[in-house]
């Protein structure tokens, strides 16, 4: 029975920093820390240098679910999918050497797409560092350019503080991947550890600034004076959990808003002010009218070259207002008249307060006019083709009709990705998961597995090309073993379609090594005990898609689509956004 006196004594003891609450190994204290940080799911693959952590994990099976992937790249993409779908930090375990180097593609992807991850890699014993020991690689230096922060732990006493910092850094400010490399001796080291304390301040790191009203006033003044204002939004709106604040802003000002593929879904596809997609394969109106608007308001986006096309002919007539949490992005590619440095969750409501109620009917009508032209020339033929061959667009139209915009769509990279981003309907945020900045083929399947763990109640559809699927098909084994109910839709055109499209349009149709053959995907899936089927006729498409989506577990559907279909519109590389081609 605890007495009041006991409690006081306990409190006093707690106040002393030397108070130890847990005696155990570095590995155990690491796993305890993960639980403190709210981690429930880990994607990983064991190996020699991380064995003590896996040994400890054996006793944590009731608290930490570990998904054994089939390759560390699959593990990190799964963690990315998890983070993107859930908004939580994705966690990955890998061993030293090849285990750690296999993470590099995923780290680069997460870095450029601002995905919060904490990766734990095992490392050889501290006394062996620099001796070219078995499975030793210089993971810290290899991963420095592709991590927001990384740190090598050689003493178990560092683990708690480093882990707490890692989570804080990964998810605060502009999120990103963090890697902690832990030597085997630190994993084994027996110590007495204090209570785990979460990190909420690092003196050399400001995740976000205090918002200065001067910015907001200047931005509001420009926006209020605009006749043809145009909003571009990116993933910053989603990462900042500012979807509602964003909607309130555009609804009050009546400004048409277009998205980067990373920002897609922050407002529903059907929103009347959502005018579509920006960039190389974006919509006609948003691209052309970028070069006609008078004030361009960029929110949580970074003017990637795939969005801007030729920079010296990009929105030169417009005054640019740029809202971003990362000051290095403001003025990086496009010079801003007003840079609003801050978290858009805070800056948008302040801005909404100062802007006038408005409607821009004439201006919106222009977007509609261009949209009609695109519907007639591009969208209708793509969604309702009259030829024998199936199009990727009609597959997407059917998915929209079946799921009504509530599915999480995970894509790989290439033509199918552009088609999916262009035509998929989204009612909800965090529903479009794609490799945006890095363009990582092989991302789709493992990311979809992670997304299913991040959004278990949603239908998760992985749309993947025949090329990209063959980069990470081993993750079918992960599905087989752990049962993630992912719907895998392979759009097979028997080509590396996007490269083929460029070779057709810009390299005189010299089809150099884009003719890719495929295994029997249905048989492959079935060999992993995953239900599968294949469609090569339009007549069977709808039924096949319904079967896939309504199937209880995972399902693979291969759809044979037209071999040489192209994705249009297109802004050819090096051209201005207003030179967008419809065919």
């Amino acid at each position, binding site marked *: 029975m605890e007495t009041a006196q006991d409690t006081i004594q306990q409190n006093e003891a707690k106040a002393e920093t030397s108070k130890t609450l847990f005696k155990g190994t570095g590995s155990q204290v690491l796993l305890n820390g993960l639980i403190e940080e709210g981690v429930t799911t880990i994607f990983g693959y064991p190996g020699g240098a991380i064995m003590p952590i896996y040994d400890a994990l054996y006793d944590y099976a009731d608290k930490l679910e570990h998904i054994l992937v089939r390759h560390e790249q699959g593990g990190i993409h799964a963690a990315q999918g998890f983070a993107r779908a859930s908004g939580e930090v994705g966690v990955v375990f890998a061993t030293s050497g090849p285990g750690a180097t296999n993470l590099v593609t995923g780290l680069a992807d997460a870095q450029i797409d601002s995905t919060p991850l904490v990766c734990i890699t095992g490392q050889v014993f501290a006394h062996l560092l620099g001796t070219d020991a078995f499975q030793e690689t210089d993971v*810290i*230096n290899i991963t*420095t*350019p592709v991590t*927001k*922060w*990384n740190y*090598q732990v050689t003493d178990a006493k560092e683990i708690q503080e480093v882990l707490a910092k890692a989570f804080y*850094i990964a998810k605060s400010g502009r999120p990103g991947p963090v890697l902690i490399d832990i030597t085997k001796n630190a994993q084994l080291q027996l110590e007495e550890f204090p209570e785990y304390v979460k990190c909420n*301040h*690092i*003196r*050399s*790191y*400001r995740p976000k*600034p*205090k918002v*200065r009203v*001067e*910015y907001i006033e200047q931005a509001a003044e420009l926006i209020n004076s605009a006749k043809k204002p145009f909003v571009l939004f990116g993933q910053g709106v989603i990462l900042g959990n500012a979807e509602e604040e964003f909607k309130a802003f555009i609804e009050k000002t009546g400004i048409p808003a277009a998205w980067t593929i990373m920002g897609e879904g922050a407002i529903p596809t059907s929103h009347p002010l959502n005018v579509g997609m920006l960039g190389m394969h974006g919509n006609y109106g948003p691209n052309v009218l970028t070069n006609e608007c008078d004030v361009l308001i960029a929110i949580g986006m970074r003017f990637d070259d795939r969005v801007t096309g030729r920079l010296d002919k990009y929105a030169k007539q417009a005054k640019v207002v740029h809202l971003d949490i*990362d*000051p*290095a992005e*403001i*003025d*990086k590619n496009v010079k*801003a008249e*007003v*840079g*609003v*440095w801050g978290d858009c969750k805070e800056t948008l409501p302040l801005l909404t307060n100062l802007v006038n109620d408005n409607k821009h009917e004439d201006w919106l009508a222009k977007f509609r006019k261009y949209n009609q032209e695109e519907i007639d020339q591009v969208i209708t033929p793509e969604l309702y083709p009259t030829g024998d061959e199936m199009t990727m667009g009609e597959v997407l139209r059917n998915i929209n009709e079946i799921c009504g915009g509530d599915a999480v769509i995970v894509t790989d990279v290439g033509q199918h990705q552009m088609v999916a981003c262009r035509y998929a309907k989204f009612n909800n945020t965090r529903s479009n998961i794609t490799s945006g900045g890095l363009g990582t083929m092989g991302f789709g399947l493992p990311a979809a597995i992670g997304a299913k763990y991040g959004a278990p109640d949603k239908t998760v559809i992985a749309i993947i090309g025949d090329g990209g699927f063959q980069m990470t098909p081993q993750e079918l084994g992960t599905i087989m073993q752990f049962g993630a109910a992912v719907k895998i839709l392979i759009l097979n055109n028997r080509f590396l379609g996007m490269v083929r499209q460029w070779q057709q349009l810009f390299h005189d149709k010299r089809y150099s090594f884009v003719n890719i053959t495929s295994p029997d995907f249905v048989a492959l899936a079935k060999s992993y005990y995953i239900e599968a089927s294949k469609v090569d006729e339009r007549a069977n498409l709808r039924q096949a898609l319904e079967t896939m989506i309504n199937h209880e577990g995972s399902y693979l559907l291969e759809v044979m689509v037209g071999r040489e279909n192209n994705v249009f519109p297109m802004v050819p590389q090096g051209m201005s956004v207003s030179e967008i081609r419809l065919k």
Partner: protein
Amino acid sequence: MSTEDKIKYTEDTVDLEGKQEYTITVYAENRIGLLNRIAIIFSKRKINIESLNSSASEIEGIHRFNIVIHEGYEVVRKLARQIEKQIEVLKVYFNTNEEIIWQELALYKVSTDEIAEKVTVERLLRQYGASAVVIRKDYTVFAVTGHREETDALVKALEPYELIEFVRSARVAIIKDSAGFHEKLKEFEAFEPGEELIENEFLEKGGKIFTM
């Protein structure tokens, strides 16, 4: 300070491409690996570091890097932001040569016989502001502290007399307009950022935080 003010075109320092010497001052935590993290920001963009110095700063535990590059204003500003973005970096300043007091140290080893015969040590000391650090029977080591032209001038002067070894240090620089980092650090250590911290080039209020 506006961009236009900031770029002070003087014929002898700015080349035709608008490039000139900039000294970047980085206040950072003293942490293994941070130098690499900073260095790759330059190498990623294929920019050569002309000189790099890493030392203590006016505050215990805070490290100060001086990095000299030859680039245009826009490029340097973007680099500075990328460096400042690194977790363990507190603050980055970048300045033209007119905005800083800077020095480099050079050491020259020459044969004592040569020098005693052919040129008077006294003249060297006077003319080039050199000091003799070591005088031995076999060799003498001179030191010169100054700008690049000054240390180069003595190399030239000693060339006829068998310059055995020569080495020059990285540049160290003090920013004329800086009040040091003490006050800033308090802001950084405070839990909530104060307005002072957010120096704001976006507001074009600009640069000078300290004037003599």
